[in-house]
């Protein structure tokens, strides 16, 4: 996560003054990152695009009240994480069902095998407690530092480390048992 370019804050201020085009520029600038974040979680382009739309809808509604107390990228990541958490919770059981419908292991198609592993992984992540799930998502999908994770989630750096450690241990247990 890089420091905010002055451009982001300028665009936000222009949008807050009533310039809708500034919001479009903001979307163009951050679309790939947001889409990529959700694509890693969902493994489905359409779902990732829908979730990205949800994020920018929330941003549009709330950006007028943005007070520049935190950086814009932190704010955006927070929205991403909350949206991802909601999606994972909503689709918890659906995800388990997808596992049941996945092709049998042992086929020679390596992409299917990889897809199976990803579904197992996200099924395991969906079973984690919310804090651990959030920390793991941010760490493994965007490779954020513990400091950045603590800024986004509002927990301490130490707590982020502990939650990550517990989450990985738990995931290892889940995936090894399956």
């Amino acid at each position: 996560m890089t420091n905010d370019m002055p451009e982001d804050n300028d665009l936000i201020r222009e949008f807050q003054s009533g310039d809708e085009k500034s919001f479009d520029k903001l979307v163009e600038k951050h679309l790939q990152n947001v889409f990529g974040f959700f694509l890693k979680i969902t493994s489905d382009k359409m779902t990732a695009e829908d979730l990205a739309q949800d994020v920018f809808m929330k941003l549009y509604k709330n950006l007028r009240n943005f007070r520049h107390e935190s950086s814009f990228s932190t704010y955006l990541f927070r929205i991403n994480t909350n949206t991802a958490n909601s999606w994972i919770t909503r689709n918890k059981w659906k995800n388990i069902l997808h596992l049941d419908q996945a092709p049998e292991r042992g086929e020679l198609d390596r992409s299917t095998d990889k897809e199976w592993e990803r579904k197992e992984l996200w099924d395991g992540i969906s079973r984690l407690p919310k804090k651990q799930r959030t920390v793991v998502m941010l760490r493994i999908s965007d490779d954020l530092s513990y400091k950045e994770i603590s800024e986004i989630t509002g927990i301490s750096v130490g707590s982020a480390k502990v939650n990550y450690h517990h989450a990985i241990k738990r995931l290892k247990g889940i995936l090894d048992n399956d």
Partner: protein
Amino acid sequence: MIDFENRIIGMMHSESSGPDAASFIAKLRGRQEKEMMRNNRLRSGFSAFAFIFLVGMLTTSQFVELPKQDIYWSEVDSNIEYFDTDFLTFDQGYDTISDEEFTLFMIEETNIWDTEDLIYFNELYENTNVYEVSL
């Protein structure tokens, strides 16, 4: 543990390109318009409901108790209760009012039973007077 971490980070790797920004923004605008229309519909619906509710409350508040019928003869400070059917308890002041006038009034006010009582007792009174006089 690090191997496991690297393994799951490797699973996250995705090479897919993102959606086209222009079409994404167009879809976003469409969604915003839809939501704005939905909010406007909700607001209109709520305003209409509030208006109907208010009108209903104002209307029902008009259904108050019917005012008691004015006692036309009570302008004068008197102990006489003209709509009391027990005419025998009338005060002496009753005698100063013309019976015919009062009977007519009672008929006009459609107090038929009270009028009949009045006529009956008036005749009784006159007969009593005649009788006493004869004594």
